């Protein structure tokens, strides 16, 4: 049984009113966690390594300044044996640099992406599935950040 990433990042105790509210939407909870798990901790990572996946997720959380999710993805990078300091300083391979630059673009200005941005990823060695995985990670963490932020506000309101 894995820890629920949204409950943890939003600071929701399992007996809190917002955690109980979430249980009314079982499919949201299951597939929000499921999306995270298949993208960040897959049993078969295929062409995008576990380090690249966690580094991409960390990049989104860092740009959006979500401290709890930054901590979560830093921890995950350590678990898979990455040099977190080097990754955060962009002191990385050309391939990971290309991935992280793409992640930044998709996070901050998704409407500015072009066909040539995917060509850059191809030149860096990413196959079609890998390109979809990177986009899904950005999409998943961008979603997660807003769910967590909204639920934190709801919890704050209920405590008041």
């Amino acid at each position, binding site marked *: 049984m894995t820890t629920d990433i949204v409950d943890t990042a939003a600071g929701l105790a399992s007996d809190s009113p917002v955690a109980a509210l979430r249980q009314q939407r079982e499919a949201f909870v299951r*597939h929000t966690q499921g999306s995270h798990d298949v993208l960040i901790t897959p049993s078969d990572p295929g062409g995008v390594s576990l380090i690249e996946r966690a580094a991409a997720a960390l990049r989104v959380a860092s740009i959006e300044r979500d401290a709890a999710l930054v901590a979560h993805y830093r921890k995950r990078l350590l678990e898979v044996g990455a040099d977190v300091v080097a990754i955060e300083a962009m002191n990385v391979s050309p391939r990971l640099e290309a991935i992280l630059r793409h992640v930044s673009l998709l996070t901050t200005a*998704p409407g500015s992406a072009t*066909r040539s941005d995917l060509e850059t990823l191809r030149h860096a060695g990413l196959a079609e599935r890998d390109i979809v995985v990177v986009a*899904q990670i950005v*999409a998943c963490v961008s979603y997660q950040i*807003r*769910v967590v*932020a909204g639920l934190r506000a*709801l919890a704050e309101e209920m405590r008041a």
Partner: protein
Amino acid sequence: MSGRFTLEPVEWAAWIPPVDAATATPRQRAALDASPQRDSPYFLTLAHDVDSLEQRSPLFHAVMYVPRGLPRADRELATVIVSIINGCVYCSSVHARRFVELTKRPDVIVRLYDEGPGTQLEPRQRAIADFAAKLTREPQAIAAADLRPLREVGMDDLQIHDLIHAVAMFANANRLMQTLGEPVTA
């Protein structure tokens, strides 16, 4: 606002070759069948990574269509607001048409397209638009005070919960749709 946004149907073309529907694996087939437009180029592109599509399609479906809680028209309105802010012509076209089907209010969409999310709206729509815009643009700035306008138009806890997820789902959808291909106006 840009004149690119439309209430007309829009096509979408991928920038990488989508999966061939005729040669999809059984898992890809099942995940596609659970997707809103099963053999569209968009879902055939996402099918390259069946693991994430298997989770995302049921999540999307639940967030947009689960019974009770936030009325469907409110979910559609929120996703149109987010899609306008993020510039997603395809997403806004699909969900603006759903909003109009449910409400018979094309005038609301036309005003949003012409003047942006700040246009004059009825109180409930205003509250939804302001919350959706802030959660989209500045998720870290959202606080309990931002829920007050939603409470003032009568939203309960479950409705606010659903609104948060509809907004978040389109932070997701707009990022996939705009970065793996582009809209093609018929």
